[in-house]
């Protein structure tokens, strides 16, 4: 089964793709369009219908054609130990204006809201390539432990990427901290079509960035 498109329509998940089947006894091979409509409960699939055609699924969710916005969420999660106390690691990673020091494509991040950082604080960021700029907002803020961000989609080459993710810092004992960094952008348009490529790129980039962060923190005593 190959999913060419997966998107949320109302309370359902609509998946459009193709299926290739080969009969074990007959040897008969069939290539067909394939579609599914899935409902979820508590994060698990509670009801699913699928068809060897796109039309029934589109009809089931009330779409007249497949020409609706495509959306794909990807996730890259990296966990690592850093040989510095958790409060030092938290102070560094929670200062989003320092992201350009360790996150590859970031050129600048500037806090736009007044007052101390908290849920609702807005930052403006600029990234390469193309010096593209948008905002992100702190949507979860638990001092010394966790922050999460979200922001409007940033356009790029006929598509867009909505920045989402979180950092979690915990004390790992022995003067070390465990950092979990999770990046969950939502891709639309051409970027959604390139989701597998984007995910591979993001993972490679963030592994490099994480190694840079670890070196930066472990060699700096400031």
């Amino acid at each position: 089964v190959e999913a060419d498109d997966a998107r949320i329509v109302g309370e359902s998940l609509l998946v459009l793709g193709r299926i290739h089947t080969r009969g074990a006894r007959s040897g008969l091979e069939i290539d067909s369009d394939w579609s599914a409509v899935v409902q979820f409960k508590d994060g698990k699939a509670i009801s699913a219908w699928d068809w060897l055609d796109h039309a029934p699924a589109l009809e089931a969710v009330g779409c007249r054609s497949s020409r609706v916005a495509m959306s794909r969420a990807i996730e890259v999660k990296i966990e690592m130990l850093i040989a510095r106390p958790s409060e030092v690691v938290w102070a560094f990673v929670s200062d989003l204006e320092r992201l350009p020091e360790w996150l590859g494509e970031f050129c600048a991040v500037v806090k736009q809201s007044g007052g101390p950082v908290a849920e609702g604080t807005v930052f403006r960021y600029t990234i390469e390539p193309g010096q593209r700029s948008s905002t992100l907002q702190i949507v979860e803020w638990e001092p010394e432990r966790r922050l999460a961000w979200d922001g409007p989609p940033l356009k790029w080459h006929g598509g867009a990427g909505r920045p989402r993710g979180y950092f979690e810092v915990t004390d790992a004992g022995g003067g070390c901290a465990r950092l979990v960094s999770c990046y969950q952008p939502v891709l639309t348009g051409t970027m959604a079509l390139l989701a597998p490529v984007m995910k591979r790129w993001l993972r490679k980039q963030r592994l490099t960035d994480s190694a840079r962060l670890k070196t930066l923190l472990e060699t700096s005593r400031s």
Partner: protein
Amino acid sequence: MSEANIENALLAIEAWNRQDLAVFIDFWHPEAEWRPAFPKGTEGTGNVFRGHEGIEEAWRNVREA
């Protein structure tokens, strides 16, 4: 409905393709109902499969056909 459900569905499709039953089953709610579009001639066509046991039965039906 969460965007994470999209990622979960794509992971379930990957699990189906690489024949990883455990991951595929984990995608489903224990009270799930699945009406799969098995090709004609495959045992189970038109059936409703319920719960993890039913999902596993559907999985085995299509792979043995």
